[in-house]
């Protein structure tokens, strides 16, 4: 397949993915915006006023980066897992598998589709946060880079989940029982400085903790983690997950009998 053909195929997958979540915007874009809006009102505004400062910032300012990151993580993941599994469920994935599109293009197309939704919701949430807090981005490069890399990591994770999923239950188990606890324990709502040493150590094993704190560093200029170490972890995750996805696609796991 020539490179311009590959690009057309890649573009086709990305457009199809964006068209899909755009078509069902009431299910894909509005609910996360409402949920995060409620977090802003309840935790940031009502409860936050009584909490006072966290990590040297007003509680609302502290949680805004975490909530933006939470929406990016959840939506990047859920877009890929639900879209790819739907293609499997309806057998429309066969259109792609029979076509000459290389596996890495298929994977990249779905990843960019997931990133598009993650970033779209992230942007909506960021705009909403401006009604509640005055955000002044301290390091634009770090802010954008970490959000892009995090989106890639969770889009890849969603892809693996979709490959192994056989039922609709299978695509909700990981987000419910793994992803949500990791996000909530990843320093979205609190600084790990508040935790006893053991739980502080446990938090260090949670990759989302590094992503949230690096994003917070980009916006607020403060972080509980080493930024270089956080970027290294993100890159390692991307390499491992991308390679795993390609190997699974090559083997035909969950796709070919």
């Amino acid at each position, binding site marked *: 397949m020539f490179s311009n053909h590959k690009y057309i195929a890649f573009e086709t997958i990305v*457009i*199809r993915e964006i068209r899909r979540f755009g078509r069902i915007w009431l299910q894909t874009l509005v609910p996360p915006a409402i949920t995060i809006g409620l977090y802003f009102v309840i935790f940031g505004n009502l409860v936050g006023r009584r909490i006072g400062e966290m990590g040297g910032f007003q509680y609302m300012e502290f949680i805004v980066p975490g909530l933006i990151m939470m929406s990016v993580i959840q939506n990047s993941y859920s877009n890929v897992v639900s879209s790819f599994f739907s293609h499997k469920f*309806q057998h429309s994935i066969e259109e792609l598998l029979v*076509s*000459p599109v290389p596996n890495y293009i298929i994977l990249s197309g779905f990843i960019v589709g997931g990133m598009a939704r993650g970033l779209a919701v992230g942007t909506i949430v960021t705009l909403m946060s401006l009604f509640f807090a005055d955000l002044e981005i301290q390091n634009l490069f770090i802010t954008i880079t970490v959000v892009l890399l995090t989106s890639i990591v969770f889009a890849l994770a969603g892809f693996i989940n979709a490959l192994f999923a056989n039922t609709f239950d299978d695509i909700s188990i990981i987000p419910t029982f793994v992803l949500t606890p990791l996000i909530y324990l990843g320093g979205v709502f609190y600084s790990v400085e508040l935790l006893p040493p053991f739980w502080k150590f446990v938090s260090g094993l949670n990759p989302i903790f590094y992503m949230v704190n690096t994003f917070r560093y980009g916006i607020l200029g403060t972080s509980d983690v080493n930024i270089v170490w956080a970027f290294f972890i993100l890159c390692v995750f991307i390499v491992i997950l991308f390679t795993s996805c390609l190997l699974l696609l090559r083997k035909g796991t969950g796709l*070919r*009998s």
Partner: protein
Amino acid sequence: MTIAISIQNLAKTYANGFEALKGISLEVEQGDFFALLGPNGAGKSTTIGVISTLVNKTSGSVEVFGKNVDTHVYETKLDFGVVPQEVNFSQFEKVRDIVMTQAGYYGLPRKLAAERCEKYLRKLGLWEKRDERSRSLSGGMKRRLMIARALVHEPRLLILDEPTAGVDIELRRSMWEFLTEINNSGTTIILTTHYLEEAEQLCRNIAIIDEGRIVENTSMRKLLNELDSQVYILETTSQIPPDLDLKLEKASLEIIDEHCMEVTVSGGLSVNEVFAVFSEVGIKIDSMRNKTNRLEQLFLSKLEGND
């Protein structure tokens, strides 16, 4: 003559131990209209699955226009289009988007894709439905949409897995005409079907597959020539004498009721000779029809031979 597809010793054993293919070999020439016949579970869809890379083979090889599908993945995939047995497009997408997306997968630039999309949707009578969601289409329309989708990159080889299953007779006939037109324009077609009449009408060559083995692989003409007898159902206006004897060596008779009988005429004997006997004994024939489809008769005998 160029070989469109060459399958050598293809075997497939599924994870549950079921041997769907037990080392089949067959070749289809370029330009052929080839039928792959077999009962349910014979291995037809598995064969197509292996060719289209949806099923991982256990052993053997498949070449499309001289190129191995394992080593020349992209070139071979560009050369064929597949129309699966089950509907496999998104039910929520519009008809035009489904075909345009497929064109995109094959790297067709947008302008060319739009032209091809219109061309094939018009040919298959779906252009008026182009902006409708695919789930609103009838069963026959969905099948035609899958054919339009498979043709949008204009493959040299078109593989159809029971394309007319569940389609009414009128629509089936129009699909036959369309497929014949496509074949006449140079596209090689491989067709699996349960409708033996379909294979007899359309295909020049045929392979019969049963229990994962090819039990016959020949031309349709040769296969039909193997038939040395035909069975007719005759209805009479006069009563058939219960002791009626044709006294013909190559014909036998079975009385079904007093106005209906079944006559088996073997090769070499003219039907006129049988009718002459009826005239002699004063039996008037009201109507006559073939008891079974000729190919069906052969097909069943081949399967029996494989047991």
